[in-house]
């Protein structure tokens, strides 16, 4: 296993301001919550839309996720990750909860007679946004199997056994490709955590 870099001064790119805002939210500051909303509602909604697809349901899940951020802000621990990641973890969890029940999965299949999520879905949303540009570039540096596995799991909301089924690939292979791919992304994106 690779050593993970850590230590003071290495958290460049981390939005300290967001950490501070979330601390205020935990104390019931609604203005701070609105500021957090303004920063993160876009990524939260965009991520949920990718997983859930249906617009009305995505709005509902977005509301649930952001309300959970409000409600549980006191449980955010800056020592365990950034505020943005804490929020995105909640959002992704809510989104997969919505699509992973058997009934929901059947519904989703009916509703989305579309091709599976692939890397071009990143390209389409990667606007002039620098972060998006960087992510796209880093995704482009992965092998096809790594990239497909990661996007199906994260944007598609599939479990890794489902990803393995979709890609007709062995379970263990998908598991390690996702890990290898993410480590490569991490190093490419300069994530220091």
């Amino acid at each position, binding site marked *: 296993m690779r050593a993970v870099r850590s230590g003071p001064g290495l958290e460049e790119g981390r939005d300290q301001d967001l950490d501070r805002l979330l601390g205020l939210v935990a104390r019931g500051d609604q203005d701070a919550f609105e500021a957090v909303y303004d920063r993160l509602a876009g990524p939260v909604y965009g991520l949920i839309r990718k997983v859930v697809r249906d617009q009305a349901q995505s709005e509902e899940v977005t509301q649930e996720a952001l309300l959970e951020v409000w409600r549980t802000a006191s449980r955010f621990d800056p020592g365990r990750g950034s505020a943005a990641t804490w929020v995105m973890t909640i959002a992704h969890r809510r989104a997969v909860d919505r699509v992973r029940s058997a009934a929901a999965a059947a519904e989703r299949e009916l509703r989305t007679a579309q091709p599976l999520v692939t890397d071009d879905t990143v390209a389409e949303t990667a606007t002039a946004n620098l972060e998006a540009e960087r992510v796209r570039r880093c995704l482009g540096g992965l092998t096809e199997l790594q990239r497909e596995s990661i996007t199906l799991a*994260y944007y598609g909301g599939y479990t890794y056994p489902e990803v393995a089924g979709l890609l007709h690939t062995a379970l263990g292979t998908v598991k390690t490709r996702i890990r290898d791919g993410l480590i490569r992304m991490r190093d490419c994106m300069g994530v220091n955590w």
Partner: protein
Amino acid sequence: MRFSRHDLHTLTGVYALDAVDGSERDLFEHHLRRCRPCGNEVRSLAETATGLAMAAALPPPPRVKERVLAACAVTRQLPPAIDRPSRPVRWAPRQALRRSWTPRLAAAVAVVSLAVAVALGAVGLRTRQELDSARAQDQAIAAVLAAPDARIMSRATTDGGTATVVVSRVEGKVVFTTAGLPRLPASKVYELWLMGPPKIRRAGLLPSPAAGRTAPVLASGLVAGDSVGVTVEPAGGTSRPTTAPIVVMALRV
């Protein structure tokens, strides 16, 4: 299923993407508590995944912001988790509602500021009997909110309001409340239904809104596949829905 230590280590990636479920997830979480390098790796990979979310940003419609801010104004926040020796908390039915809001219970609870003081304050009860029955109702509601598996869900209603439920599969009960529903003429009422695959059951009438919200209504006897729904019916209610529901929520119990 058995997993070797090596297998567990390699789950960091799929765990960071929330792509592992069930017993494998439980096992890995157990392992994580002991494996510091795994924890560090999961954190760095979760930060990486956040980059993927940022790249997918899409502005939500303005109504989402309105609803979220309105909901947060009436939603009680969890107190911080405090490290101290845990002791089991049992629901004590004779205790006043306020006693149930100890941090440990509240931690397990998904709480809209609903239950608190609810019927007691808002509805203007007069007799001792009414007070007792309201208190019993509050305690039943608090038990649902305090259930370890309590889960909160919200949906927009077709008439511009928001319905919120807290559901517990263990208790077999759901607490239902609303905000922003239009006031109805005296000849009409909002009626709550449990809608299961086999049949639709009455689940009570919503009290008239006070300060834009309806006091929580408790419905029991949930069965697998139930949804809750609300229709507008003639005053007094009906035995089966006669209008299109203003909201339906699958409870996933």
